[in-house]
């Protein structure tokens, strides 16, 4: 179930603060504890994914965690309510709201919206260039998925089908060459061609499957919530006679 609830917290009255918390308490069964450095207040999130219902929340000292789901429109981070909130924390939140307005926690290393879009555009152009190379080598059924809202460790997935191991090798080496020449990126990934070859370029991850592996692992279903990017060239159909 999608976790992307976004609040545009702007100019709402202080009285509705507790309402928001009530809603969130119903939405997420999250138990979080604060293990904080004295400087920052951290809020933990628990993605209410498929098989996660029996786990408690993970607590951590935040370093590079991306708390933003769907930050296209605002860069205010939402505060997620907790299950067993004590009176003190309620009061603390109220105090904070009164003092600072609705923004309780804003990440300091967050870039403004325009820069984020620029970064994404760069990765997008890289991803589309890679997909183009793959289609030149006659890879089948190329899909580019924008997974940044779902997954924080990468931005784009490229999924392609190759029909034989030498073809996987060929696609892999062409992509590596182009990336190194044009963009200067070196992928960390498998060196030997496997039935599932993966090339990790940091914010773009390329998966090259054999047809039966693609059906077996079924990544499109797993990342079904990701938006698919339109490719400007024609795709080869996955099965040809």
């Amino acid at each position, binding site marked *: 179930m999608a976790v992307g609830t976004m609040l545009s917290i702007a100019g709402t009255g202080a009285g509705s603060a507790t309402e928001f918390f009530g809603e969130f308490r119903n939405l997420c069964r999250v138990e979080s504890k604060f293990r904080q450095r004295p400087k920052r207040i951290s809020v933990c999130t628990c993605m209410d994914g*498929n*098989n996660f219902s029996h786990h408690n929340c993970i607590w*951590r000292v935040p370093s590079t965690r991306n708390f933003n789901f769907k930050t296209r429109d605002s860069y205010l981070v939402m505060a997620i309510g907790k299950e067993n909130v004590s009176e003190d924390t309620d009061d603390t939140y109220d105090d904070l709201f009164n003092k600072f307005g609705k923004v309780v926690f804003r990440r300091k290393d967050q870039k403004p919206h325009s820069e984020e879009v620029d970064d994404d555009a760069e990765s997008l152009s890289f991803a589309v260039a890679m997909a183009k190379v793959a289609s030149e080598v006659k890879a089948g059924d190329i899909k580019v998925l924008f997974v940044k809202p779902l997954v924080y*460790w990468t931005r784009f997935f490229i999924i392609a089908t190759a029909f034989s191991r030498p073809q996987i090798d060929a696609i892999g080496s062409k992509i590596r060459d182009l990336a190194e020449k044009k963009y200067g990126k070196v992928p960390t990934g498998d060196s030997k061609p496997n039935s599932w070859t*993966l090339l990790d370029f940091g914010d773009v991850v390329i998966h090259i499957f054999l047809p039966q592996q693609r059906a077996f*692992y079924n990544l499109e279903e797993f990342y079904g919530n990701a938006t698919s990017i339109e490719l400007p060239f024609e795709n080869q159909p996955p099965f040809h006679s």
Partner: protein
Amino acid sequence: MLAAEFSMAAGFASTSSRVGRSLLGCLSNNLSSVLGTSQGIACCNLLLQQQRTFIQMRTVLKVVDNSGAKKVMCIQALKGKKGARLGDTIVASVKEAHPNGKVKKGKVVYGVVVRAAMQRGRCDGSEVKFDDNAVVLVDKQGQPIGTRVFGPVPHELRKKKHVKILTLAGHIA
């Protein structure tokens, strides 16, 4: 219930020697009277915490993918003299399996450790440790045998070239 814990590497822990819980439990009372109260409490905490160690031969681990196995016992840690840690590969024997799964009981499989009770340091100074030891089964080439991974997996897998497991995981710690 499982929970993961991050803790800053305590200076106290690094300087003093680690001791087992049962050995010096009786001494904690003496310590708290000898030292000041705050130091005594810190000492107490250290002595009452369990000392977690590597994953080695005969360690039973939980399997957290849908390959069919439930529990495996480590036979060999492939890297490291003392044992395997978070993100390492092990050779294991399946001890318990689902009746209709891809692996059967008694099979020798490779696995990647995705959760370990022993803490592992991260580059920013924090440490990550989990409540249990869990493994994802892979084949000899490193391809996962199952199709989905359950529970949280740490970020350390990316550095260790196990990005495939990260893509199959639903939650990343």
